[in-house]
Each structure stands twice: as structure tokens, then as C-alpha cells.
């Protein structure tokens, strides 16, 4: 009985550190993709990775470049592997250090949140909501974000946990 309990406990712990697959919800006028992962690293490290624009291409295989400064009200130009030919001109709309970051344009909005867990881990969530009245006209031309989101979250988790593991 004890062995069964221990096994279940280990499985539960392992599951809590695993990354959940990105999910997408669609309506007529909107589409929202979300990914959530639990990271064993200090929120300051994750926040630093998310807000240091020039450093993105080093650790994030989905981002080709980000020009500009990631700070409230600033404009950034993002190039992603989602569409290598396009530059996304975005504005940083919310910037709560260690908690929440939002950037976007007229068509969509990307939200990052961090939440500290009681076991010292951090739950990272990233979602992107795109849409509007014209959305049905161009929806079929926008590729799925799911795989890209999975990669983004996995890269972030890997890099943050690597930095956290460095010796003092």
C-alpha cells in the first residue's frame, strides 16, 4: 500500500513539472492559443528572460529577433519563425515586473503571466488572442500557433532551469 502511495506521489510530482500541450479555442471572431508550464526556477530569472529583448534569439528557437526595449509603452519589432518574412510591430501594453507582460497590436494581444507556487516553482502561462470583426475574412491564412507555443514554453523552461541550476 505504501509503495502504491509513493508511486502515485512521484507520478503526481512529475506531472506537475511537465509541460502541458498548447490548446486553441476558436470562435467566429476570435482565436486564442494558450500554453502553461511549471518551471523550477526563480521568477526573477524567468522575468529576465522574457524582458531582455536582445537575448531572445540565444535561448528561444521561435524568435528570430526582437528590436527595441521591452518596457511599458515601448514599441518593439518582433520577427518569429511563425512567419519569417514578416516583422510584427507591437506595443508593450502591460508590464508588472515578475507577474505579467502584455504586448500586441490592433489584431491581437500576447499575454505572459507568472505565478509563484508553494513548492518554489513558478507556473508560466502564455496566451495569444487574435481577432476582431474582420477575423473571419483572414482566419484561414493564419497558421496554427500550437507547435510554436509548445516550443517557446519548452525553451523558456529549459533555459530558466539551466540558469537556476548554476552553482553559487
Amino acid at each position: 500500500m505504501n509503495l502504491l502511495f509513493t508511486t502515485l506521489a512521484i507520478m503526481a510530482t512529475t506531472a506537475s513539472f511537465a509541460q502541458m500541450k498548447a490548446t486553441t479555442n476558436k470562435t467566429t471572431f476570435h482565436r486564442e492559443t494558450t500554453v502553461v508550464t511549471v518551471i523550477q526556477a526563480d521568477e526573477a530569472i524567468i522575468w529576465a528572460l522574457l524582458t531582455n529583448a536582445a537575448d531572445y534569439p540565444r535561448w528561444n528557437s521561435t524568435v528570430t529577433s526582437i528590436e527595441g526595449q521591452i518596457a511599458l509603452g515601448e514599441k518593439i519589432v518582433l520577427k518569429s519563425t511563425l512567419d519569417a518574412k514578416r516583422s510584427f510591430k507591437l506595443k508593450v501594453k502591460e508590464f508588472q515586473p515578475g507577474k505579467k507582460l502584455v504586448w500586441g497590436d490592433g489584431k491581437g494581444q500576447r499575454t505572459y503571466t507568472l505565478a509563484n507556487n508553494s513548492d518554489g516553482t513558478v507556473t508560466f502561462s502564455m496566451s495569444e488572442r487574435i481577432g476582431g470583426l474582420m477575423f473571419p475574412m483572414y482566419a484561414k491564412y493564419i497558421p496554427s500557433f500550437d507547435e510554436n507555443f509548445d516550443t517557446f514554453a519548452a525553451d523558456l523552461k529549459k533555459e530558466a532551469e539551466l540558469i537556476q541550476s548554476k552553482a553559487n
Partner: protein
Amino acid sequence: MVLSSESLTAEFERCSAALKSYILRITANKQDAEDIVQETWIRAQRSLEQFKADSSVKTWLFAIAQNIARDHLRSLKRWPENVGDICKEAAMGDQEFFREAMTIRQTSPQGAFEIREHIAFCFTCVSRSLPLEQQIALMLKEVYEFSVKEISEIMDSNEAMIKYYLHTGRGKMIEVFDKRCALINKEGVCHQCTELNGIFNPKQNAQEEAVKIQMVRDAAKKDKEHLFDLRMKVMQELDPFTSPAATLQLHHLEFDRKVMEQRPEQELTGS
């Protein structure tokens, strides 16, 4: 614990050489290093009662010094990683530079040219291409061997951020030197240390001298992390103010600083 003026003086004397070399290596400016160390002493004496025994006096002095240096450096431009190429080009067209350097070579007791000293000089210049926090954290950890906790006290930051600065700064420097330094990579574009050895020490075989350095001997192993550690060991073993080539290298450093300060802002972004 109350820190007495006598204890402070004794500790300051013990660590002032390291303090001065550290400030030189983050500012790349001899005059700034001397001024900042002096100002550190004055501020420490004035604020003895603010010393808290939860850190060492050495850590406290480094914190004061780096605060002064950081305020000063924030107003200055960062340098590009190819600073060596830029300054070499400027030096080639500047007869005065070579005339002064040759005079130092012939007259100064610290005018010898040493490849290993140039390795340290080179790192001082190239590390100015890092964001300031990364450069400071890297120097404190890798050269002056402070712990992450001590660096967080010196930089008034948290340990997680220091780990981030160290990870990114170290990664960037490894990449730059792997790409540029011909001592560790046959495809490396920079041969300046061996070229200068030919100019300032023509009787010496540069290749023979180079292989006396552990980093060069181990280059074939291609372990980039290990090679970076050996580069830092070269830094640790040298005091840029008292080494046999100090006067000559400080002359080079001063020349580089002037070249970079005169360079237009838009040309200093390629890091």
C-alpha cells in the same frame, strides 16, 4: 559590529590592489580607476557606521566602488565586440601611438610585451561590449572570485538575477572569443597578440610563447567552457598595474579608450 577606522584602513590596504584592477577592468580607464578607488576610501571612511557585519569589509568596499563606477559608466557608450579591429585600424594610421609605445618599450621597466598580458587587456576591452550588469557580475565572479551571494550584495540585486547576468555574460564572451581569438580557434579572425609580439618583441617566437599558455595548449580539446575558465585564470594571475608589461598595456588601453570615445554613437552598436 562597529567597524573602526583602523580596521577599515587595514582591510582597504589588503584589497586596494584588487579593487583598483577591478575598476580598471570595468572602466578600461586608468585615471577613472585611480579616482574611483580614492573616492571609495573617502566614502567608506565617512560611512563607517553604515557598515553591517552581514557582509565582509571587502564586499562592502567593492559595493561602494562599483556603485561609483556604475553611475559613471551608465553615461558612457558600450563598445562593440570588434573593438580590437577598430582600434587596430586607428593605431595603424597613428604614428604617435607607435612612437610612444616604442619609447615605453625601450625605457620603462614595465614595457615588456607579453602575450598573456595582452590576453587580459583584450578581455578588458571586449567585455565592454556586454550590457553593464553582465560585465560587472562576470568580472566579480570569474576574475575576483566572489560568490553569487556576495555579488548580489555588491550589485544590490537578487541572486537569481546575478545568475542570469553570469549565464548570459559568460555565454556571450565564450561565443565572441571562440569566433575571434586565433589563439583558441584556427579560424579566429584576431591575431593581434601575436602580431604585436612581432612588433614589440621581434626576437621572440610568438608561437613558442603562445603555447606556454595553458589556454593555447588546451585549445585543441575544443571545450569552450574550459578555455574560458583558463582565459579567466590568466586574468586572475595578473595585476594590470604591476605586471611586467603594465605600462605598455595601459598605454594601449588608453589609446583604445580615446578611439572609442571619439567614435560616433551610431557606430558603437554592433555588439
